[in-house]
């Protein structure tokens, strides 16, 4: 985990933030937006700085990301993702389109061509409600080396080579460590590979 601040972690805070997002979506509630802004804008800025943006660029993009939170609030589905995950995805995609000038291809959840798993037991294998607390606990149970390669993957544009350089280990080691970490993570999450 990267430098936790202790200001979050209680489920009640997370629930409050989800309630705020709902109020933004349903009532255009500016106070609720302000709560979200105070919590997430500095974290988005921190995330962008860590990915190499300068102070001014990160601030401008954090503002932009929060504007997207306002515009897209109605698309948030609490049954599918935690608020932090949804906002992470908005910030990530904004960065891809701004800095890399590339599209971010994503599935369309309402696409009739989407293949649904209707075989027995599919519910457990493909349950979509992703519990942030469970993911956090699984990450915490990885070895420090495995956790490093997984989390660093979120802070590099060329993850493998940059992680290898940063950790001072060969590229092949990063790749094999990542494979093991992902397998371990999946086991901890109870997924099927």
């Amino acid at each position, binding site marked *: 985990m990267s430098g936790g601040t202790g*200001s979050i972690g209680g489920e009640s805070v997370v629930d409050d933030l989800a309630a705020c997002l709902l109020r933004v979506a349903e009532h255009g509630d500016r106070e609720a937006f*302000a709560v979200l802004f105070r919590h997430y804008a500095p*974290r*988005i800025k921190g995330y962008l700085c860590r990915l190499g943006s300068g102070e001014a660029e990160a601030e401008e993009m954090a*503002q932009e990301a929060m504007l997207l939170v306002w515009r897209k609030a109605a698309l948030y589905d609490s049954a599918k*993702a935690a608020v932090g995950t949804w906002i*992470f995805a908005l910030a*990530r995609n904004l960065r891809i389109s701004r800095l890399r000038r590339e*599209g971010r291809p994503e599935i369309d959840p309402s696409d009739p061509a989407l*293949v649904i798993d209707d075989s027995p037991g599919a519910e457990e294998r493909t349950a979509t409600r992703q519990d942030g607390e469970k993911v956090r606990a699984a990450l915490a149970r990885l070895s420090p080396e495995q956790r490093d390669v997984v989390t660093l993957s979120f802070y590099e544009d060329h993850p493998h080579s940059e992680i290898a350089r940063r950790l001072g280990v060969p590229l092949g080691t990063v790749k094999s460590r990542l494979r093991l970490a992902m397998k371990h993570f999946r086991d901890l999450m109870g997924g099927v590979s």
Partner: protein
Amino acid sequence: MSAAFHPSDDFLLAYAAGSLDEAASLLVATHLALCPLCRAESERLETIGGVLLEHQEPVPLGDEALTSALSRLDGEGAPPSRPVPSIRTKAKFALLPEPLRTYVGQELESLAWRRMAKGIEGVVLLDRGAARLRLVRLAPSVRIRRHGHSGREMTLVLDGGFKQDDKRYTRGDVAMADETMVHAMEVDADGPCLCLSLLDAPLKLTGLVGLLVNPFLRK
């Protein structure tokens, strides 16, 4: 049903983290549309991003940041409500799920297919320097002789199927190859095969003869 062969974990992780390039992301996202297992896995990995964001060391914004954001909202009005899903049927582009359908943008028959070899046609969808993503269609029973690679090769089956190294790939499956592999492929006899093919670098050939027959080398 989920696919039988999936992109490797590092691709799924890079896709969730946002570091994967657009061409590879399009192939991965199209696989996700066809594979509920990987879709769930991808959501779990995205949740790691959310957890990291929650624990991210905050970097304070300027004093006026919130005021300025709120005043920008004045020009925005209330957030738009959730759009009503459009009424669409599978029929027209049934073979192409989103996001691929939007990138292709038209019916398969009206694309500018170019002959790559006997029984093989392709059309480039994205060409980003080293990475090139193509739709490729192959006639029944077409064979591609043994070849190696100088980079990664990723093939997503959209229709029909092929055999490679004694494994049979059908709709939704992803065949992965890298510089360590040498393989041959043969399209199923019972119908043509439509694939999405990602090449990171031109194929390395096992022999000079390969140069003449290996269609993926040509642009």
